[in-house]
């Protein structure tokens, strides 16, 4: 048996297409009018990268792993008096500058993955557009502010 096509009415594609567009015309559009009404992004959306300055040890791993070099880190060593008289001076790395250039960032999240001290987090906040490309560089304070928008991590599994 050869599969012979059943004869159909002519212009089937034409009719189907016209009917589809006509149906869609009278449906409610899916548009969300952004500035007036907002969609809530899912909790773990990759909106922006937040920084926990307390946890950061200026190890530079994130800056080195970043594929497009959008992280700027500067730090210095702070010396603290030795614990015992005549002992060695203790040092502590202090973060001076932690900027992310969001004009360059491609939201790959490698920095978040690579951070050994859990200082970087994904935040679902997405409203940080600027009028100029040079203003997309966000500093430590802004990144720390975003830490407050980071959702709590998912609960550990029991047992």
């Amino acid at each position, binding site marked *: 048996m050869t599969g012979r096509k059943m004869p159909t009415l002519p212009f089937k594609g034409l009719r189907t297409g*016209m009917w*589809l*567009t006509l149906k*869609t015309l009278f449906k409610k559009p*899916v*548009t969300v*009018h952004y500035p007036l009404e907002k969609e809530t992004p899912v909790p773990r959306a990759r909106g922006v990268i937040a920084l926990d300055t307390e946890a950061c040890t200026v190890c530079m791993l994130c800056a080195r792993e970043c594929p497009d070099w959008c992280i700027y880190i500067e730090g210095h060593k702070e010396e603290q008096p030795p614990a015992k008289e005549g002992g060695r001076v203790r040092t502590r790395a202090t973060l001076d500058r932690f900027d992310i250039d969001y004009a360059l960032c491609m939201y790959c999240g490698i920095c978040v993955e690579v951070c050994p001290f859990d200082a970087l987090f994904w935040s679902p906040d997405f409203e940080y557009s600027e009028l100029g490309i040079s203003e997309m560089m966000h500093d430590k304070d802004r990144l720390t502010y975003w830490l407050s928008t980071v959702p709590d991590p998912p609960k550990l599994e029991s047992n």
Partner: protein
Amino acid sequence: MNFWLELLIKVGLALAIMLPVALVVIFGELKISAHMQSRVGPYFAGGRWGWAQPLADGLKFMQKEDLVPADADDRVYKLAPYIVLMGTLALYVVIPIGPDAVARDLDLGVFYVLAVSSLSTLGVLMAGWSSANKYSLIGGLRAAAQLIAYELPLVLAVIAVAVQAGSLSLNDIVNAQASFHLFGVESILGRDVTWISSLISPFMILQIVGLVIFLVASLAELSRIPFDMPIAESELTMGYLTEYSGLRFTMFFLGEYAGLVSMAAIAATLFMGGYSFPGVSEDVLNFLGPVILLSKVMFIAFVFIWLRWTFPRLREDQLQTIAWKWLIPAGLINIVATAIFKVAF
């Protein structure tokens, strides 16, 4: 009245009516296309529904610099948009908008329509040639090939209407439709069928083949999707419009939509009874006529927009195939059939 004063008033009136209608069609295109794609389209311009979007677009175009390419044929390049716009606006002269309201009731109205409507092709070809751009040139030549191919079915469809109405004057064609009987048949099987003929008086029913041919061919004449090979963006950037900017581009743009309205008006006049409506007397038509015609025009414009946002662009050979292998033979058969019916009854 002074001849020149009268002329000025008529021209002013035509522009005052037709350009807003073209703007309305542009707005309709924006909105309908958006909703067909589950979007909302313009939303903020002008407050409600974004009604001022076409005006905002026009103002934006006017602010742009009027560029002329260094190698362009200066005069031809600058003249082309005017010819396109004039070609479409000149059509409004013969379209009757009421029993006594027509700018100029030519005996050869249909002939004039067909002649003038191909004038804008010349403008397109001029634009393509003078731009000194390969895309423009190919676009212009494609437009010429397309318009030659589709001028024929357009004419053939109109001839059948002229045969049936027995006149080339648009006003007479409208009258023929308003007072038309089923080829003079008054009764079928002893029953009075004049009421049927009053319902189906427009040629829309009897010339359905002609109407379809006319609509398809006028889509191609207007080079709208699915027949927009002359400006196919994916291949030719913007075709003959590539080098145009600013006010001249606006004129092409307006010309396109004014052309759509004029083609729709002609289709409405030839096939859908123009300003007449079954059961409306002639006294009322002088006032209601323009409204009736406008609503018919808007309906056809909607169909054009609907088709545009449903179908992808055709290939160049498919375009020629449709014209030469399908529309022209169908048009010829339509003429023969119409003539036989006309003679037989």
